[in-house]
């Protein structure tokens, strides 16, 4: 797909802020009745005025810095004028000519190759309300409006058309999400936290904008669909026209929304109710408040814990995984911890399509690894404990007991071997006569005697030793 050109506009809700972008209403919206988290400002009542949430500006600057952007001398809000029932003022307050951050870069790893993706701009804007249809948009006889979301702070990150495949686009979005979560300005797991518009073209062809992609997986699927649509047209000699298309998540296709001739006229102009902000002067203080970001953490993990680059990469992609690992590594062999967190725990979580937040606390992992290092349980036993903890919860100690996962001590195994040999003279004869099954039979008898807790490798070893001596 080397002739594919993709640019993204990613809208992220700064849902870690306590209040909305221009008023004091809370951003905690989950499970609320409609229209209860509103006030004269976010309802756009006549006379109410917006006041910028200073913390939102700080968050935006921090994101800009984390994406290696330049911070504007002055930033300014604009009005984007259009009518829609979810837009209570008849205009959206957004940014236009003077975005808060611009000219950045984020490197994305695609199949082992680190490629720089240029960031054109990062700007702030408010979310409109939400339209609620009865049933589907086509069949509903009316529409309801919920303004709880109105005024939620959004950050829009716009890339240059540097992405070359849907997979790379997905990787970019994942990395962006991870960085925002590192900065603790965003929780990507909340509904509606991230929405994407994508510009797609084939080299030499017209650019198509896809609107309304609202899930992480949707980005890759929408792009795959749109690219194959454009390639099919090209194959059949049909010209792709410049247009805006809507992504239908349920049917997994894109539909024409408007063509170039029907382009929207937004009449952008500076918002007179908000004064320009001299944000450049905030930069140095905020730089000092930036946390350690993924790439720096990855290098530190390699250095500090002596772990491999691939482990370090897996462990630092998400801030929560990195924190989890460090809490385990503090109290165990860091290399062993890396293997068990990056390979086993992450593997089991991925298999269950679950997040590290849904895992058990690191203290329990520490306990498991301790039991593993002192030989109480086997590798296989440790994996079983992890699975049981993820699926049923509970305490690792209890699980080891209940499932008889503790290894039988060597003395007991040795005694069991001696007893089995005494009781099975016939089998010994068969073994000496060269019958291989006889050995397996003896192993089975030892395992039976020890209730299955003996380490099979140890049983093998002890049996062979004893048989050689008889």
């Amino acid at each position, binding site marked *: 797909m080397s002739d594919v050109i993709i640019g993204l506009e990613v809208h992220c809700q700064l849902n870690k802020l306590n209040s909305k972008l221009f008023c004091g209403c809370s951003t905690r919206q989950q499970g609320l009745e409609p229209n209860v988290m509103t006030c*004269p400002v976010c*309802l*756009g*009542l*006549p*006379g*109410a*005025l*917006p*006041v*910028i949430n200073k913390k939102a500006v700080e968050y935006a600057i921090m994101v800009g810095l984390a994406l290696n952007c330049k911070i504007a001398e002055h930033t300014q809000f604009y*009005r984007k*004028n259009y*009518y*829609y*029932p979810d837009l*209570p*003022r*008849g*205009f959206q307050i957004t940014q236009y000519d003077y975005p808060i951050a611009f000219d950045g870069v984020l490197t994305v790893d695609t199949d082992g190759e680190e490629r720089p993706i240029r960031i054109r701009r990062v700007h702030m804007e408010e979310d409109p309300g939400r339209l609620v249809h009865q049933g589907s948009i086509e069949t509903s006889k009316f*529409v309801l*409006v919920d303004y709880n979301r109105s005024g939620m702070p959004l950050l829009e990150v716009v890339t240059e058309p540097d992405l070359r495949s849907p997979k790379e686009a997905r990787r970019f979005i994942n990395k962006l999400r991870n960085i925002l979560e590192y900065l603790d300005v965003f929780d990507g797991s909340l509904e509606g936290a991230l929405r994407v518009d994508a510009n797609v073209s084939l080299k030499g062809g017209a650019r198509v904008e896809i609107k309304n992609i609202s899930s992480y997986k949707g980005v890759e699927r929408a792009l795959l669909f749109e690219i194959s649509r454009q390639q099919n047209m090209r194959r059949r000699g049909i010209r792709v026209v410049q247009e805006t298309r809507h992504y239908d998540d349920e049917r997994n296709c894109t539909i024409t929304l408007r063509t170039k001739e029907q382009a929207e*006229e937004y*009449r952008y*102009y500076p918002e*007179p*109710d*908000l*004064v320009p902000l001299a944000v450049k002067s905030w930069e140095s203080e905020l730089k000092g408040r930036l946390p350690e970001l993924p790439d720096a953490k990855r290098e530190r993990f390699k250095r500090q814990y002596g772990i491999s680059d691939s482990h370090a990469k897996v462990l630092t992609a998400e801030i929560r995984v990195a924190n989890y690992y460090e809490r385990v590594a503090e109290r165990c062999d860091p290399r062993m911890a890396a293997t068990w967190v990056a390979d086993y725990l992450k593997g089991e979580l991925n298999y269950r399509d679950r997040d590290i937040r849904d895992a058990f606390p690191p203290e329990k992992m520490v306990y498991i690894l301790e039991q593993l290092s002192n030989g109480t349980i086997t590798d296989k036993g440790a994996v079983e404990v992890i699975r049981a903890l993820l699926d049923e919860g509970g305490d690792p100690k209890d699980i080891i007991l209940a499932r008889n996962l503790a290894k039988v001590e060597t003395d007991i195994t040795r005694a069991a071997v001696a007893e089995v040999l005494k009781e099975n003279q016939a089998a010994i004869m068969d073994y000496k006569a060269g019958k291989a099954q006889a050995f397996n039979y003896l192993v089975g008898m030892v395992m039976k005697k020890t209730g299955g807790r003996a380490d099979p490798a140890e049983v093998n070893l002890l049996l062979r030793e004893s048989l050689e001596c008889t």
Partner: protein
Amino acid sequence: MPGQYEESLHKTFDRIKRSRLNAYITLNVEDAIKTAKAVDEGRVTGRLAGVPVAVKDCITTKGLLTTCGSKILSGYVPPFDAEVVARLKREGAVIVGKTNMDEFAMGTSTESSYYGPTRNPWDLSRVPGGSSGGSGAAVAGLECRMALGTDTGGSVRCPASFCGIVGIKPTYGLVSRYGVVAYANSLEQVGPMARNVSDAALLLDVIAGHDPKDSTSVDTADKVSYVNYLIDDVKGLKIGVPKEYFGEGTDKRVENAVWSAIMRLNKLGADYREVSLPHTKYALAAYYIIAMCEASSNLARFDGLRYGLRTGKDENWHTTFSRIRAEGFGEEVKRRIMLGTYALSEGYYGKYYLKALKVRTLIKQDFDKAFKDVDILAAPTMPFPAFRIGEHVDDPLSMYMADVNTVPVNLAGVPSISVPCGFAGNLPIGIQFIGGLFDEPKLIRTAYTFELNTDFQKLPEGF
């Protein structure tokens, strides 16, 4: 047995009910009497305790109908008070009611109100000026002691001039706009209107000062008390007389009255000299472009979905919005929305809006330059006295021209006070004093001295 405040308030309401001025859209009888009683009983105190104050209907009042003189806000009862109203209440003021105005403050005559025109107490066949005409007529006609207006391009000073009272357009950012229904938000300020300079200064004292709810409100270190500048002394004051403010179309009687006023101040110890504000001729065009552009956006929220007019059968949203706006807005409002929408459109933005902003900068520079040489400027507020109801209705452009001397002040954001300075027949004439940013103390001092040493504070015949 009612106390003195309650008794006097009853008289005011009786007067209003008999009145032919149509100064009010909504009266606040029950709540006002409750407050007056509380003042009588000493439960409410403050600098305006018991003072009947009228509020222009584009200023939001909690629990009290707020229509902006428009049909589209029929039945809209705001759930919150504008900051200026909250400050009035904190000082014990009695809110008499909501005054009539040009629809959404778009006008110079108070004729475009959905609730009918207000009449001038000096001559009932004439307009009171606009857009705060209801406030002007209520003050002049003794239907309140003082009133709040809003001044976007002269809307406090014009009715002050036409009704023979005092009106102040404060420095942009001095008074909170929180709760003022926006017409052109980069230009407008709430301003006091009263029968004398002392009352106007007192009202300004109450409403001025930083409000964190309005980002354009200025946070000055010290709060100035304007009543401290009621000083009878203009010795050494340097007055500039901008020659461009006596242009073609200025009534001779107005010109003479204003010059006599300047001579009077000169006799009282002030110097005067002619100055030039060379970009004045572009002010009117720039003002109307900026105001209309902002209006087209500010008025977009009135779609009938959440509040206000909702008639007929609901169809898909754009049809419903269009119908409600077609029904709810008057002709002048529609004209300004259309023109503003056009001027902000792609391809025209640079030609109109940006150019107007450049003119605005030049006008500001004119004032900055003038105030290097003089302390204040003096000029006619309006080029002519109150005109007849209906005189300009069919010719919007001739109505716009009336604002020629008031709009530069709003473009520059500077303060201005209009005080009575003479009569044309029985019609009052106003002079405006203009200062640099936050020069309200100088303006109040000049106006107070002029008022004290002249005899133009009169009541209309029969009042």
